[in-house]
């Protein structure tokens, strides 16, 4: 049974957005980290890069699999989680605590296209 947190926005490709004012913290869900196994590398964009809803911004790798990171929202990267560079396994410890990028959201209305916790729970069938 994967952990799902109320109040976050979820995408079909298993990313979440935690909204904080005009910013959003983007990461992968607990379900996604579980499917992937031990994360050994996170390929992250650089600060000031633009991300677009529905487009890739990086990838998460385990030993025998890799998963593209698809941005649920559009905006400008204002921070990347540098702790993941040295310890990518943090995502396995707590995927919601260990977000990947922090984005200045350019279009708040995009959030309406995402799922809430209940809908995401239905989608992953738990």
């Amino acid at each position, binding site marked *: 049974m994967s952990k799902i947190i109320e109040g976050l926005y979820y995408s079909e490709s298993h990313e979440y957005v935690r909204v904080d004012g005009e910013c959003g913290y983007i990461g992968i869900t607990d379900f996604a980290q579980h499917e992937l196994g*031990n994360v*050994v*590398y996170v390929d992250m964009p650089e600060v000031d890069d633009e991300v677009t809803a529905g487009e890739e911004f990086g990838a998460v*790798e385990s*030993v*025998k699999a890799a998963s593209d990171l698809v941005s649920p929202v559009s905006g400008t990267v204002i921070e990347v989680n540098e702790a993941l560079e040295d310890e*990518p*396994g943090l995502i396995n410890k707590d995927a919601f605590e260990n977000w990947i990028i922090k984005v200045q959201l350019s279009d708040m209305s995009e959030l309406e296209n995402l799922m809430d916790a209940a809908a995401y729970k239905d989608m992953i069938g738990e």
Partner: protein
Amino acid sequence: MNNTYYGKLIFELSKEGRCGYSLPKNELDNYKMSALPANLMRYEAPCLPEVDELTVVRHYTNMSNNNFGVDTGFYPLGSCTMKYNPKINEDMAAHRDFTCLHPLQDVDTVQGALEVYYNLQTSLAELSGLKEFTLNPFAGAHGELTGLMVMRSYHASRGDDKRTKVIVPDSAHGTNPASAAVCGLDVVVVKSRPDGTVDVDDLRPLLDDTIAGMMMTNPNTLGIFEHNIAEIAKLVHDCGGLMYYDGANLNPMLGVCRPGDLGFDIMHINLHKTFSTPHGGGGPGSGPVGVREGLEQFLPNPRVVRHEEEDGHHYTIENNDNSLGFISGFLGNFAVVMRAYTYILTLGHENVKNVGPLATLNANYVKESLKDCFELPLTGVCKHEFVFDGLKDKSTGVTTLDVAKRLLDYGFHAPTIYFPLLFHEALMIEPTENESKETLDSFIEVMRKIAKEAKEQPEMVKTAPHCTPVRRLDDTQAALKPIVTYRELVNQE
């Protein structure tokens, strides 16, 4: 049994002042390298081992004992066609009249080499039903890339610039989409039906004037013959695309079908699979590319061309302006070409035709003999290989990985595992035509035994292998903090 001293890294056997070489005395030692400007020379010599000759020989001989090859035992690695690598091939490849040739030496002095090259080109054309081959590509993946370059060059020559997409089945080897991407093509995935063959209904709507072509293996990665191939080829041709045949699974077709006759326009062949050249722990291989009539001009430069003359024939090395360009320094892996042609000469037309049927017989025999213990998702005849979806009884949690590792304990190489991705616990088995019934029977017996162990002693299977030179490896650690040189290893310790 391995000696632990020689089992170290070669760097750890080094002692300053030892040497393992001898060179001629310098008769011209009044010309000294020290005359070169110091700022263009390296500041510090490379830290290479200093070892005597016998130590080098023992070190690498001991190391080889930790390896498993086709000569060691049965190697049913699906999709890799681990057939016997005849010894005569090696002798011929080492023929001094051929190994001593510089690739740029005068063409009149390499006529023998060019004849081998030309003969293999024409033999492959006959075996595949295509017009002409190049032997320049270095490997299967390189052949794919070259073949796709031919495809793009063909469309470009007609001013048809819209064709930027290539169709690849979801069951294809990962190399297909990767080669397409390197070649600047976008990949469109076509779905498989439950039997692993291409879903023609899913294909139809994908076909339009942006399609450069379609890549397929036949038989596909599940060992199933794509019986709709004629219809698929027609659909793709009708929309203006070309058909690409990934020769990874050509072996069962020898003596039975030719890709050219199935409607394919471009293909590559893995000489290290179908034509018995050794895999060499990963290479060198060779990936010749063949094309249908009308596409020859696009093949890569340089080309070996035969000219008939009154007093015999003469070979030249030529470059064609319409060619896609150069994809290799010279004429490919010539020593591999020597081996493959030796193999064709050894088999002759009488025996080549039996390769496919016997490989297919072996695969079906193993499949039928094990289907009560292992999950067989696709019934019916397979070709050179087939796929089990793990153990039939999965209740003890023994996975395909565990079965594979346990096989190593019994002196067999493991099948290909977790590919194709259509099944969760894929176990892909390809016995080649060279394996005897007795070898297959012993493999079958061991596989049944492992199925039984999985029920009765699951923990033992899950921790296998137990009898190999080393135990299961921690590959998470290796990927998390990669240590890829001796220097890093020392620094870390």
